[in-house]
Each structure stands twice: as C-alpha cells, then as structure tokens.
C-alpha cells in the first residue's frame, strides 16, 4: 500500500524537524515547509492526505489562511492546526461551536506539547473519517 502523505508547516525549524521524524515514525511520508508562503506554493501543485499547520508564522493567522486555502482547493483534506497560542496568551480556540466551524476551516486544534500517541490517534482518526 502506498504511504499517505502529510504536509507539515512550521517556521521553527527544530519543531518542524521533530514533528517530521515523529510523523515518519508513524509510517507516513512527509512534505515540509517553513513558511506560509512556501506552503502555499506546495499546495498549488501537491495534494497531501492530511496537513498540519502552525498557527503563527509570517502572519499571526497564517495557519487559518493556509487552512482556508487548502480547503478551497482540496475540500476533503483534513487539517490540524498545532498551536502553542492558548498557553501563552490565554486565547482559546474551539471548533466545536457551529459559528467557529464556519470561519475556521480546520478539523482539529492541537496543543504543540501533545504526546506522540495522542497525535498518532488524531491523525489516524482524521484519515479514517475521510
């Protein structure tokens, strides 16, 4: 069976590398980008099976912008937004209310400190749903 492809975007090269190693360890193939801009050009040509976006990159809402763009091009690709925002600013996001679901086009929000096995569960769950 062909390996599923996961697009990972984060402007912290170390976090990106660690996530890449982790996700490859789960048995997926990865494509990585270090900026919203780079990710946008990848999305133009490549359809991943799932995408994981950091929230704050060049823009404070880069993750939202990327979610919006990828969902417009490939409505069936599940999106995870990985963020450390809530712990730092007290801002919380939730995509359980219908209001939020309309404008935030992500399927799941995860804290960056998430454990490997939880991350794997979430990825498996989203891929199965598809």
């Amino acid at each position, binding site marked *: 069976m062909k390996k599923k492809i996961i697009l990972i975007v984060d402007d912290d*090269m*170390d976090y990106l590398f*660690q996530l890449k190693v982790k996700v490859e*360890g789960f048995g997926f193939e990865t494509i990585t980008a270090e900026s919203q801009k780079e990710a946008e050009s990848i999305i133009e040509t490549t359809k991943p099976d799932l995408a994981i976006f950091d929230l704050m990159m060049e823009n404070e809402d880069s993750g939202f912008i990327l979610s919006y763009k990828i969902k417009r091009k490939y409505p069936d690709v599940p999106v995870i937004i990985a963020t*450390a925002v809530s*712990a730092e600013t007290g801002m919380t996001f939730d995509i359980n209310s219908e209001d939020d679901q309309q404008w935030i086009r992500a399927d799941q929000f995860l804290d*960056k400190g998430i454990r490997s096995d939880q991350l794997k569960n979430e990825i498996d769950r989203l891929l199965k749903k598809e």
Partner: protein
Amino acid sequence: MAILKILVVDDEPGIRSGVARIMRKFKVDYPFMDEHVDFTILEAESGEAGIDIIESEMPDIILLDNKLPGIQGIEVLEYVKKRNYDITVVMITSYASLDLAVKATKDGAHDFIPKPFTPQELRSSIENITKRIFLKRMTRQMGDQGKQIRFQFLSVLSHELKAPINAIEGYLEMIKQRQMGQSIEDYDTVVDRSLERVKGMRSLILDMLDLTKIETENKTRTMELCNMESIARNAIDTMNPLAIQMDITIDLQAENNISILADCSEMEIIFNNLISNAVKYNTQQGNVQCLLKMEEDNAVIIVKDTGIGMEKEDAEKIFDDFVRIKNAATKKISGSGLGLSIVKKIIDQYNGHISVDSEPGVGSEFTVKIPSVNKI
C-alpha cells in the same frame, strides 16, 4: 468627551429647571483639551427615578438632593459607589446638616453645593469637576496604553523563551526514545541544534538584562567621558573569535579623540550589537568596517558589512522588539530579536538617530548619530 451628562435629582421642579437654565449655554474650556465641553441635563424627581436614569444613561455628574420623597439622596450615592460607577456626585444640601455632609463625604461625594445656590456657584463647581474628570480620564487612558504595550511585550517574551525550551525538550525526547538510531553519531545534528537553541536563549536573557539596565538607568545613569575608539576596539576584540572562524576581517577607522559624555556601558551595548550583527550576518571571508567621526555636533558611528543584507521592507522593521528576519540565509543564525531594538532605545535616550541602508546579497550599513552637545 465633548459632552458631559449631568443628572439632577431633586423633587423641587424649580431646582431642576433652574439647573437646566443655568447650564444651557455653559461651556468649559481647558488649555489641554482640544475642544470645549458642553453639557446635557437629565432630570429625576426621586431617587428611584434617578437610579433608573443612572442605569440607562450613565451620567458623568450627578447633582443630588438628599431630602427626597422615597429613598434618600445618600442611598443613591451608596448605590453609585457600590457599583464603582465612574460618576462624580455633588450633594445639593443646606449647611445645616453637618452629619450628613460628613457621611456623604465618607461615601465618596465629591462636592457640596449649598441650597439655595447662585448660578455662579453652580458653574464654578461644575467647571472644577469637569477639569478633574478630564484629567482623570486622560491619566487612565495613558496608563492603559502603557500596560497594553507591556502586556504585548511579555506575551511575545514568553513565546520567545518557550520556543527554545520546547525545541530542546523535543530533541531530548528523540534521544531518549532512540528515534534517530542506536549510535551516538546519529544524534550529532540533534545535539548541535539543541546547543544552538541554548545559545539563542542565553543571548535573549543577556539582552533582557540590557533592557532592564536601560529602564533603571533612566534614573541612575552615570555620565562620564567615553572614548568611542576604545569602546569600539573592545567590541571588535570580543567578536574576533567568531570573525576568525568565518574568516572575516574587521577594520576600525577613527578620527582622533572622539569622546562624548555618556553612560559608557550604554555605548558598549551599541557597539557590541552593531559589530556582532555585522559579523553574524556576514558571509565567509567577508569584511566589516567600523568608522568613527565627528560631523558638526554629532558623533557618527558607521558599521558596514559585506553580508547577506536585507529587503527594504525588512529593514524598516528591524528596530522593533523581537523582530527577526526569517529567510533561508538567516535560518541558522541565532538571535533574540531584541539587540537592535535595545540599540535604538538607547540612542533615543540621547536624542540620537540610527538608520540602515541595505541591499540583499551585498551588505548592510548602519549609521548612528549621537549629539555631542556634551563634547569636551
């Protein structure tokens, strides 16, 4: 705040219409205010009606009679104070009831107007209150802005401090779980990157210390004659080990005896940051030139490198807090994003000026001018 609402609570219709008449054409001017203040008058014939208007209109000032048909004026005052409303309350009362006056003052009434009062007494009382409200709101606004900036700074700071910890923790986890393989060589990059992040964090902490120094030194700055050439020389010596590694030469050209009256430790911070940037963001076998000269009444420092340079829109941002230009060329260079903002803060303190001229792939040139009104 061009219009203030005044609520008159009095059961005598004559008093209410009297106040309305006296205030109708009254305006208050104040040198610090852009515009004069007008008043609108709201009326209530009882304490209960007054409270309704307080809730619906939120007046700025209340003129309050104590003897009312239902609840007493003093109870209306308590109502306002209990809820911490930003309303200035003036009791309209006769001199006779001293006890009441004492209690009302304790409860936070701002002023008393004796009844009956003359138009002049009312106007002068309102004028004073208006000025006081204006100053209070100004102060609060400025305080809020200060707090806002501080809060933003702290939240970015916590992000900047947490990012390296997360990265290092992630790498340690990888090592612990042998994710990269069984031999120690498999972890060379992981260890190198961890060390790099530790370095970045240390430089952030050192820059934070510089910032605190600037803030406290605003009060305790020790001014002395600083020899700019020897400070520049020291900064260059400090950076030399890294410069040698990258095969970079640093030249210093200085006019004779450029000394200014300043806090020398702050001048050191300026040179350390500019010269270390010129080395860090340089290319192999590059060059750094440091020029010192007098130009009219300014000491001029120019630090020029043959490094990676930057785009114009990036150059406009680099003196802000925590700004780091992220691209392929800067990816592996660690820094706190505070250095140049600190340099700028210091230069501002001396009424000086800093600017940058840069071209990607060619290099950057920073020019600092510090007035040497104090030059000896």
